[in-house]
């Protein structure tokens, strides 16, 4: 029995302000895939990710989760999705722990890692109970990283996740991604960085070509 792919994009088109950003995009992403969207700045990588999250409406085409249009199976899709955009969504007046607790509370699913363990793994162990306005931007992104550790969502959409992270964080994030896809999840991310992972599908948004690295 052939199963519907986890995520499939058919004939997707998006236009804004009377000019077309892209059209006729077809993609299929299955569990275990890492799809890296490449393209120059302004080519629409963030827009494509936001279309995938449902924050923007396509002008044509459809995005399907397990064969069902995301407009129809909204609850299931959103419950299984995690999106981290340019801003890490960290409230400055809350502590790292409170922020993480909040993010986890909003997620439908979380695994057994406790919040303090997750914070320890990302290197914020001693900082868990001071307000985040005392932390640096890199440390804010670590809080977002901790969120990835706890999340059980199957679809991860990450927009430039490697910004403002140091080498250690990069390694941590890459191992996190690896673990996620080995458990059957999928990752769609946009980044200029070369990932030190196997079998990364690189999709060039402008040329519409794909190759595996």
């Amino acid at each position, binding site marked *: 029995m052939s199963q519907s792919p986890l995520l499939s994009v058919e004939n997707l088109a998006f236009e804004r302000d009377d000019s077309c950003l892209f059209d006729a995009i077809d993609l299929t992403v299955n569990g275990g895939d890492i799809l890296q969207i490449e393209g120059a700045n302004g080519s629409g990588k963030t827009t494509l990710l*936001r279309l995938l999250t*449902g924050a923007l409406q396509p002008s044509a085409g459809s995005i399907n989760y397990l064969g069902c249009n995301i407009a129809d199976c909204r609850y299931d899709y*959103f*419950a299984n999705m995690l999106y981290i955009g*340019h801003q890490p*969504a*960290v409230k400055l007046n*809350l502590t790292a722990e409170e922020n993480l607790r909040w993010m986890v509370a909003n997620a439908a699913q979380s695994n057994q890692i406790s919040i303090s363990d997750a914070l320890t793994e990302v290197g914020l162990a001693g900082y868990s109970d001071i*307000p985040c306005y005392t932390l640096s931007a890199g440390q804010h992104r670590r809080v977002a990283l901790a969120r990835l550790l706890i999340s059980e969502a199957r679809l991860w959409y990450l927009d430039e996740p490697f910004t403002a992270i140091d080498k250690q964080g990069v390694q941590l994030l890459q191992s996190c991604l690896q673990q996620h896809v080995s458990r059957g999840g999928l990752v769609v991310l946009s980044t200029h960085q070369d990932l030190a992972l196997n079998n990364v599908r690189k999709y060039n948004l402008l040329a519409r070509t794909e190759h595996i690295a």
Partner: protein
Amino acid sequence: MARQMNSGFSAWLRRDLLLAYRRRGEVASPVLFFVMVSTLIPLGLTPESARLAEVAAGMIWVIALLATLLSVDGLFASDYQDGSLEQMLLTPQLLPLPVLGKITAHWLTTGLPLTLVSPLLGLMLSLPGAGYIPLICSLALGTACLSFLGAVGAALTVSLRKGGLLLTLLVMPLYMPVVIFGTATVNYAIDGFNWLPPLAILGALFAAAVALCPLAVAGALRVTASN
């Protein structure tokens, strides 16, 4: 391991209350504004009790409205800047529910303190005795309406820089019925009439606001916050 999702209302309510508690100083400004501006009235008009008494109800109401207007600008602003609003648009829960939670938190930290402080202002502006209870009742319902209507304006202008002035323009016409019935409640009581009918209309406005504004806010946020 999937957990039962809550509606999002109480989660966002609690978070916003916690944030307000952490920024206590900021939250106190509408109340301070309220008290300070009301001292301008005797300075600008007259210190005579009799004349103040005539305008007290309306004045208190208008200043409460202005104080709410100033504070509603920031309802979605910080969430928009740090990306939390983006996340709110992606929750599986229906969007009007977290919105309802945020607006409720806003009223609890703005409208409610204003309502509780209003008898003090009534005293300072020689409000006749019959007006105090109606003032508190009308402000309680009225400031809630103002929070809801203000949230619609805040949602429509959240991604604009200097959206505050535009917010005032957008929301003022919507505020006018609330002011009319709010002050009428107090003035009816002062003149010796039954003040429950205008209060009931205010209650009806409140009910309509609770039902409809979160929908308008959700629609507006989807348009403005995802650009």
